[in-house]
């Protein structure tokens, strides 16, 4: 209750309200642009948060995430082009409704389901994060090391069916994390004599290069985006009868989104497709699915908007980014000298509760902005692709330069963009790389600190109860993933 009241007290802060509205607005625009994922939309704004107050900066980034997840559904419904990965499931019935001249109705259902999902997810975040953090307060360096290993154990789930490829990507991320000063002795490593690398490679540069630059390098050779033509953008919110009908699919989406969001590495896309599938299974009108069912829009939209809040549970309580967007948000924390995890609630409670309050405002902002923004969004989405690519790149390169006013970093981001392009060609997943990058320091520094404490005895990792529990969980998660993959392969064979 205290945390709820503290969160609500932040609603009075004008800057937080401004950050939430600005973030949601930017997120909706970004999410509505095909090729710009929520994480790219967040990464584009990350450089601007450097000089901001920590709470405002994090509210801004989290609001972009909220807005982008909703914004992705607009082109999905109107032009059959999901603006974000997690809006893919919305295409199925949303576009069918648009073809039947019910685009405004589909957009209204998407908006209200997003609001329901977002608020439900926020409630889970407020209720679960603090309790998880309290449990984790007894963390020693050994436990932190094991926590890092637990984070790395989700690589299997992020590896798109190939653990070896996921490991390869994670190793590249760890290699990038090791550039610069050694965390214990201060010895310089892998700097190749460059003064610009003495402080290491900032995660933000890697994320902007891997997501934004790589995407543009790919998009330049791809076909033009489909044109929405004369699709209607007049919004029609669901009436009472429709609201009652949508309750069940929204509830299904909320439950699945919660489970998927809290599990690191699961993500909104899987949640949206699972919610769509379950909503169809439990619907009174399953035959309407695929032919313009309102429930087929409500379930995935509710699920992927729940994830915008619940994906922050492992990030805030354990410091584990469970999605690309959470990884960018982690970057936002690190920029402001904050390390998400158990100690965050003691060291900076005002930031955490400010973030909760900001997320509440962001969901309200999503509704208000959604009501007025559809036409400009459509105008933007339908801009010619060449100009869109040009302005996105101009914005990205300007943002990168703005971080440290460094030409070297502009070149570095291009190099990382090329790395991302090669990884995509080789079908190597990027998320394990980001995970390795952000967990590299945590794992290495705490591993070596633990050994210094124990006098070189590795048994410290199993004699420490929290560490032992986390390591066991990591082993169980890995075994479960391996078992799931094995059974799926067996089913495919049969």
């Amino acid at each position, binding site marked *: 209750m205290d945390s709820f009241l503290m969160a609500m007290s932040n609603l009075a802060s004008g800057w937080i309200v401004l950050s939430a509205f600005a973030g949601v607005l930017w997120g909706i625009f970004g999410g509505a642009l095909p090729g710009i994922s929520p994480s790219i939309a967040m990464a584009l704004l990350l450089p601007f948060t450097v000089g901001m107050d920590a709470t405002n900066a994090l509210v801004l980034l989290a609001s972009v995430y909220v807005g982008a997840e909703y914004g992705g559904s607009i082109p999905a419904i109107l032009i059959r082009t999901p603006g974000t990965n997690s809006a893919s499931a919305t295409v199925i019935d949303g576009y069918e409704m648009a073809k039947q001249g019910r685009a405004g109705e589909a957009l209204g259902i998407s908006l209200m389901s997003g609001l329901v999902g977002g608020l439900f997810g926020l409630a889970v975040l407020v209720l679960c994060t603090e309790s998880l953090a309290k449990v984790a307060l007894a963390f020693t360096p050994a436990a932190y090391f094991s926590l890092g290993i637990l984070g790395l154990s989700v690589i299997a789930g992020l590896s798109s069916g190939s653990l070896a490829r996921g490991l390869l990507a994670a190793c590249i991320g760890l290699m990038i994390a090791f550039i610069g000063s050694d965390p214990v002795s201060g010895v310089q490593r892998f700097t190749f004599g460059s003064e610009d690398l003495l402080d290491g490679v900032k995660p933000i540069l890697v994320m902007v290069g891997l997501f934004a630059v790589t995407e543009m390098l790919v998009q330049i*050779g791809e076909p033009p985006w489909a044109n929405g033509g004369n699709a209607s953008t007049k919004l029609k919110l669901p009436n009472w009868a429709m609201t009652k009908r949508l309750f069940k699919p929204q509830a299904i989406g909320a439950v699945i989104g919660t489970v998927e969001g809290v599990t690191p590495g699961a993500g909104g896309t899987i949640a949206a497709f699972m919610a769509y599938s379950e909503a169809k299974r439990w619907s009174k009108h399953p035959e309407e699915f695929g032919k313009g069912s309102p429930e087929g829009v409500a379930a995935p939209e509710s699920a992927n908007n729940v994830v915008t809040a619940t994906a922050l549970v492992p990030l805030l309580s354990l410091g584990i980014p469970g999605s690309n967007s959470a990884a960018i948000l982690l970057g936002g924390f690190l920029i402001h000298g904050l390390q998400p995890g158990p100690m965050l609630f003691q060291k900076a409670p005002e930031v955490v509760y400010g973030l909760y309050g900001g997320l509440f405002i962001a969901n309200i902002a999503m509704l208000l902005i959604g009501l007025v923004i559809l036409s400009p969004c459509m105008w933007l989405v339908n801009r010619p692709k060449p*100009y869109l690519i040009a302005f996105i790149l101009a914005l990205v390169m300007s943002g990168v330069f703005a971080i440290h006013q460094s030409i070297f970093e502009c070149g570095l981001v291009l190099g990382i963009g090329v790395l991302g392009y090669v990884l995509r060609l080789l079908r190597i997943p990027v998320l394990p790389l980001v995970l390795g990058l952000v967990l590299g320091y945590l794992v290495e520094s705490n591993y070596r600190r633990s050994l210094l404490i124990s006098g070189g005895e590795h048994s410290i990792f199993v004699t420490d109860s929290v560490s032992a529990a986390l390591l066991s969980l990591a082993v169980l998660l890995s075994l479960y993933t391996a078992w799931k993959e094995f059974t799926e392969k067996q089913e495919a064979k049969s």
Partner: protein
Amino acid sequence: MNDALVDRISGGLGMLLAGSYIVSAQGIEDSLLADGVGASGVPMGVGIVLLLASFFLFVKSLKNKAAMDKSPHSGETEGPAAMGSKHPHAMALGLLLILAVYVFLLPLLGYVLSVGILVGAVAWFAGARAYTSLLMCSVLAGPVLWLVFDWALEIRLPVGLWPMWLGK
């Protein structure tokens, strides 16, 4: 590219990277403050994991290739490509060159002019041929973004060598 070829290239490149990384890690000097693991310990471990993962991919690709060679459908293509550029990699390389030129020009010509050139060149390269719109976007991009970054966000952007050239 089929899975076997992708795995073989990934495995080969991964082994090459792991080998050079391990050699490079061995060359790290330990400080007097070093612990038992040392500055090179964890990187060496990561290099070995990378080597093993890459080796696994490489070996798997050889097994898959043998299976594909035996398959009666191994000669089939993956179906028609989407109607994009016929040379997507060349397009990506071209875009990268434009971006590299922008990075080179930024300290020389300053932000406003460089961004204008970047926007115009990228839009043209991506297929924009309406020259009036192209010119307007190029001319407006620099000042608009300058206002956002320099004026609104107070982030100092490079002015280039213009002050020197103009004798100021």
